[in-house]
C-alpha cells in the first residue's frame, strides 16, 4: 500500500518535471531572460523645428539639471530635501513629488530642476555632505528661442505613456523617454527623435549591474523645416487675439439681444499659400503655454486646458472646430448655380429684403433685413445678398424635387453638394495633424439618418428650406476653417486642391544638408471654368474693395497693398451668438506665368458677431503682414451690417 502511494507521488513529480523542462521549457527561457536583462535608453538630442526662412522655432537646449540619484536613504533624504528646496527656490513638496513620481525610471536619477545657474551647481557640488546623492548633469530640454508660438501647430513633447508605448513598440522607446504628443512634434516624431543610446544590461535579482551586454550610440534627430513663417505666425496670433479682445466689448446690435456683448471666446486664423497649400500661419484661440508641457504639466492645469470654463484651449479650432461658414459659403453656391445654368451672371434679381417660397408662403429674409434692390451675381456676392442666394437654393430644390422628371435634375438639385465635395469638404484636408474633423455636407441621405427615429416622416425629406439654408452656408452644413482655406485656395489657384503642407524639408542635424524634400501634395482637382471664376472673383474683389459698397469695404478702408478679394460671413448658431467669418484671397489675379505669391486667409471668431466687423479687420491686419509690414497697426473693428 505504502509502495503504491510512493510510486504514485514520484510519478507525479517526474511528470511535472518532464512538463516543465522538456515540454514547455522554451517559454520559460524567454521569461527568465526578460527577468535579468534591462534595456536602458538615453534619448538622443531631438531635432530642431525651423520656420520657412530657417529661423529656429523649437530646439533642444542643454541645461544644467539637478538630479537626485536613486538609492538615497530616508534620513539622507529628509535632511537633504529642505536644503535643496531652499537653494533651488522650489518647494519641498515639489521635490518630493518628483522623487516619488512613477514617471521616472527606478534605474535612473530623478531630474529635480532644470536650467539651474552655474553658481548654484557649484554651490551644491562643493557641499556633498549637505546634498548627498545630489548630482548636476547636462541634459537637453525643449526651448523656444523666439518665444513660445503656435502651440497647436507645433505640439509638445512629454514622457511616453502606456498607450504610446504600445503603439511604438517596434521603435524601442525607453520608459521615461519623451515623445511628440501633438502637432509637428508628433507628426515628425520619427525624424526629430533620432536614435537613442541603447544599453542592454544584465542585472541580478536586486537590480545590481552584472555586466553590459551591448551599447549602441545615440544619433541626433533630424531638423524639420516648416512652411510656417515665424513673423506671419506672430502677426496672425496677435491679430486674432486683438480682434477677439476688441470684439468682446462690442454690444450685440441685434434688437433682442441689445444688452449683451459678444463673448468672442474662441477663434481660428489661417494663412495658406494657395499655390501649394503651404501653411504659412495657423492659430487657434484660446491658446495655451506650450512651455508648461516641456517637463510635465500638473494634472490640475492640464484639466483646465480641457475644460469648458476655459473653452477648451487644447482644441485646435483650425482642424477641430466645426462651424457653419455663413455667407462665405456663397462662393461654392455661386459656382454650382453658374455651372448648372441655374442662373446666368447677368440675370437681374430683385432683392426686396425678403423672398417668399412655398405654400403657404414662407418668408426668407436678408440677415441684415436690408433691401439691396436689383442685383446681379457680382453685386450679390459683394453685398452678400441672401435673397439672391435663397432664390438659387429654391431653384436647385425645384430641380431636386423634379429629379425623376428629367435626367440631370438630381445633379442640378445637388449642385452645391457636388461642388462642395469637389472642393474637399466633408473629408479631412490631409494636413497630417491628429484628430482632424471632417465637417459635413447635408443632403437627403444625411436627413434620413439624422431623423431616423423622428415620428414625423416630413423631417426626413430634403425641403426647400434645406436648399435655401445650404445656399447661404447655414443649416446642417459644417466646415472646419482649414477646409474653407483649402477650398478657397483651390478656387484661387485655378482648380488644384492641395493638402495643407506643414513642412518643406527634412534637414540633417544642425541643418547642414537636405535629407529629403517634402513636395506639395495634390489631393484633388476642383476645376472651375475661367469665365465663371472671373465673374465670381469680381464679386469677391468687390466685397473687399477698400471703402467700397462690399461687406468688407469698411474693414479694408484705406488699405493700399496687394489686391485682396474676400467674402464675409455671419453664421447663426443655435443657442449661441453669431460666428464671425472672413475669407480673403490675397492677390486674386496673379499675372500669367509669373511667380507672384497668392495667399488665402481664413478667420473664424466664435460668438464674435458680424463677419465684416470682426473677422475682416483681423484678416486685414494679417494681410498687411503678408504685404511685408513686420508690425502692422492694431486691429480696428468696424461697424457693418449682418450678412
Amino acid at each position, binding site marked *: 500500500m505504502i509502495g503504491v502511494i*510512493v510510486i504514485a507521488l514520484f510519478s507525479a*513529480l517526474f511528470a511535472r518535471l518532464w512538463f516543465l*523542462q522538456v515540454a514547455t521549457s522554451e517559454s520559460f527561457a524567454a521569461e527568465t531572460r526578460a*527577468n*535579468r536583462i534591462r534595456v536602458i535608453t538615453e534619448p538622443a538630442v531631438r531635432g530642431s523645428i525651423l520656420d520657412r526662412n530657417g529661423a529656429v522655432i523649437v530646439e533642444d537646449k542643454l541645461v544644467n539639471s539637478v538630479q537626485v540619484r536613486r538609492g538615497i536613504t530616508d534620513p539622507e533624504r529628509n535632511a537633504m530635501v529642505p536644503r535643496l528646496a531652499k537653494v533651488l527656490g522650489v518647494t519641498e513638496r515639489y521635490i518630493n513629488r518628483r522623487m516619488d513620481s512613477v514617471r521616472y525610471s527606478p534605474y535612473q536619477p530623478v531630474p529635480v530642476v532644470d536650467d539651474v545657474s552655474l553658481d548654484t551647481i557649484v554651490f551644491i557640488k562643493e557641499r556633498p555632505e549637505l546634498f548627498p546623492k545630489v548630482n548636476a548633469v547636462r541634459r537637453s530640454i525643449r526651448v523656444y528661442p523666439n518665444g513660445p508660438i503656435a502651440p497647436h501647430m507645433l505640439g509638445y513633447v512629454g514622457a511616453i505613456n502606456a498607450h504610446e508605448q504600445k503603439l511604438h513598440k517596434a521603435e524601442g522607446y525607453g520608459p521615461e523617454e519623451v515623445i511628440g504628443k501633438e502637432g509637428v512634434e508628433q507628426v515628425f516624431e520619427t525624424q526629430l527623435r533620432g536614435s537613442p543610446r541603447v544599453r542592454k544590461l544584465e542585472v*541580478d*535579482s536586486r537590480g545590481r549591474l552584472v555586466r553590459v551586454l551591448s551599447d549602441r550610440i545615440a544619433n541626433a534627430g533630424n531638423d524639420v523645416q516648416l512652411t510656417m513663417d515665424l513673423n506671419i505666425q506672430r502677426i496672425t496670433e496677435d491679430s486674432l487675439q486683438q480682434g477677439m479682445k476688441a470684439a468682446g466689448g462690442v454690444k450685440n446690435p441685434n434688437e433682442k439681444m441689445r444688452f449683451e456683448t459678444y463673448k468672442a471666446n474662441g477663434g481660428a486664423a489661417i494663412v495658406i499659400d494657395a499655390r501649394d497649400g503651404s501653411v504659412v500661419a495657423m492659430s487657434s484661440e484660446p491658446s495655451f503655454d506650450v512651455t508648461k508641457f516641456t517637463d510635465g504639466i500638473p494634472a490640475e492645469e492640464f484639466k483646465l486646458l480641457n475644460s469648458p470654463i476655459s473653452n477648451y484651449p487644447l482644441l485646435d479650432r483650425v482642424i477641430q472646430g466645426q462651424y457653419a461658414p455663413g455667407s462665405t459659403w456663397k462662393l461654392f453656391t455661386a459656382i454650382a448655380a453658374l455651372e448648372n445654368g441655374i442662373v446666368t451672371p447677368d440675370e437681374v434679381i430683385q432683392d426686396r429684403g425678403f423672398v417668399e417660397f412655398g405654400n403657404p408662403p414662407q418668408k426668407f429674409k436678408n440677415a441684415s433685413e436690408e433691401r439691396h434692390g436689383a442685383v446681379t451675381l457680382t453685386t450679390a456676392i459683394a453685398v452678400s445678398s441672401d435673397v439672391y442666394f435663397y432664390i438659387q437654393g429654391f431653384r436647385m430644390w425645384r430641380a431636386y424635387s423634379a429629379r425623376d422628371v428629367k435626367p440631370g435634375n438630381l445633379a442640378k438639385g445637388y449642385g452645391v453638394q457636388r461642388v462642395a465635395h469637389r472642393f474637399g469638404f466633408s473629408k479631412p484636408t490631409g494636413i497630417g495633424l491628429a484628430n482632424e474633423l471632417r465637417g459635413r455636407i447635408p443632403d437627403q441621405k444625411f436627413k434620413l439618418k439624422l431623423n431616423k427615429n423622428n415620428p414625423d416622416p416630413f423631417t426626413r425629406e430634403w425641403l426647400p428650406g434645406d436648399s435655401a439654408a445650404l445656399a447661404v452656408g447655414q443649416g446642417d452644413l459644417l466646415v472646419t476653417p482649414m477646409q474653407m482655406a483649402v477650398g478657397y485656395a483651390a478656387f484661387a489657384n485655378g482648380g488644384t486642391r492641395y493638402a495643407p503642407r506643414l513642412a518643406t524639408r527634412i534637414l540633417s542635424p544642425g541643418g547642414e544638408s537636405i535629407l529629403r524634400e517634402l513636395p506639395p501634395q495634390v489631393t484633388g482637382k476642383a476645376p472651375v471654368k475661367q469665365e465663371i471664376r472671373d465673374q465670381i472673383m469680381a464679386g469677391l474683389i468687390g466685397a473687399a474693395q477698400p471703402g467700397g459698397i462690399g461687406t468688407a469695404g469698411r474693414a479694408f478702408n484705406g488699405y493700399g497693398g496687394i489686391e485682396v478679394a474676400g467674402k464675409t460671413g455671419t453664421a447663426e448658431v443655435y443657442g449661441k451668438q453669431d460666428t464671425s467669418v472672413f475669407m480673403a484671397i490675397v492677390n486674386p489675379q496673379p499675372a500669367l506665368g509669373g511667380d507672384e505669391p497668392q495667399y488665402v486667409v481664413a478667420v473664424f471668431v466664435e460668438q464674435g458677431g458680424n463677419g465684416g466687423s470682426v473677422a475682416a479687420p483681423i484678416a486685414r491686419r494679417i494681410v498687411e503682414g503678408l504685404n511685408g509690414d513686420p508690425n502692422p497697426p492694431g486691429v480696428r473693428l468696424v461697424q457693418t451690417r449682418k450678412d
Partner: protein
Amino acid sequence: MALTTRSRNRSMRAAAYAPSTRRRTLLDAETTARLDWVLIGACLSLVVVGLVMIYSASQAIVEEDPFFFVKRQAVALGVAAILFILLMRLDYRKLRDFSLVAYLVTVGLLFLVLTPVGSNAKGSQAWFQLPFGLQFQPSEIAKFGLIVALAGYVNEHRGDIDPWRLTVIIGLALVPLGLVQLQPDLGTNMVLICIVLGLLAVGGVKGRYLGAIALLGITGVYAVISLGILKQYQVDRLTTPYESASGKRLQGAAYNQDQSVKTIGTGGLTGQGLFKGPQTKLGFVPEQQTDFIFTAVGEELGFFGAAVILALFGIVLWRTWRTARLARDYYGTLVCGGVLAMFTFMIFENIGMTMGIMPVTGIPLPFMSYGGSALIACAACIALVNNVYANRFS
C-alpha cells in the same frame, strides 16, 4: 503514562543482549559490513550534490565569502556524521526503551525554544542561538524524536490499537504539534502529522480510523488557516498554487513560486550547466539555498540531473521500505515506516512546491537544503534505518 510500563522489563531485556565486546573501535568491521551501503551511498550523493548546489545558489549572497553557506553546512555534515556513528554504535532496540526520554526531550526542547532562550527569525520563534553564529532548530529534531517515541508506544500495543489507545497516540502527538504551531511552523507540523499517519498505518490501525485521522488533520489545517491562527503570509503561501493564473502582480510566496517554476523550466533537457544558471547565479529565486534548492538543480543540471536526484531519493525510499520489510522486529518496521512516511512527504511536498503543484510551506528538501538541524535530523533517521538493517539478523 503508558510508556512507563515498559521500564519494569528493562533489566530482563538488557540481559538478552550479547555482551558489548565489539565496541572498542569507532565502528567495528562487522557492523560496517552489515550497513546498507546502497542507502548510505544514495544519501551521501544527495548531500554532496546538495553542497555543490548550495554553493551555486548562495555564492552571491555573502559577498566577502562565497563559501559562507557551504562551510556552515559542512560543519553540520560533520556533526551529522558523528551522530550517525554514535547512533550506529547503539542497538536500535535500546532506543525503544528510551521512547519516553526521546519524547520528553523533544517536548522540552520545543517548549524551551518558545521561551526567551530561543530566538526569532522570519516570523518564527524556532531557533536556539549557538556559539560561532550557528543555530539549532529543535523542530527538525522533533521529527526524529516523534518517530522514536510513538514507534515505542505503538510497538507496545501491537495489534491492539483500540480507539482509546488511538486517542492516547493523538494526544501524545498533539503536544509537540501544538508547541510547533506556537512558533509557528505549519510545514513541520504537516510533516509530523504524516509521521503519525505513517506509524499508525504500519501499526495496523484500521483503515477507517486512519481515514478519520487524516480527515481530522485536514480539517485541523483548514481550521488553522481559516480561523486566523496563521499569519497572512502563511495563508498566502498555502493558497498560491491555486491562484497562479490570475495574472496579478506577484508578491511574496506567489513570486517565489512563480520564479521557482520558471527557473526549473529554463533548465530544459540538459540544463544551463553547473554554476551557469542565470536565475540561480543572479539570485532571482528567494530562499534558493534552503527550501528552493531543487530549482538550482533544475536550472543548472536540467531534466537529466533532476531525474537523477529524483532517482536517488527513490533509492532512499526504496531501501527504507525494504528495511521495514526485513526488520527483525516490529519496532524496527515501525521506525522505518515512520521515516519512510516523513521522507516521502518531505520530498513530494518540497519538490512539488518548487514545480508549482504543491503549496509553498517551509519544508526543506532532505539531505540537500541548506540547514544544519535538518541535515542532522535526516542523518539520525538514516542511522536509525541502517541500525535496523544492520541488526536484521541479530
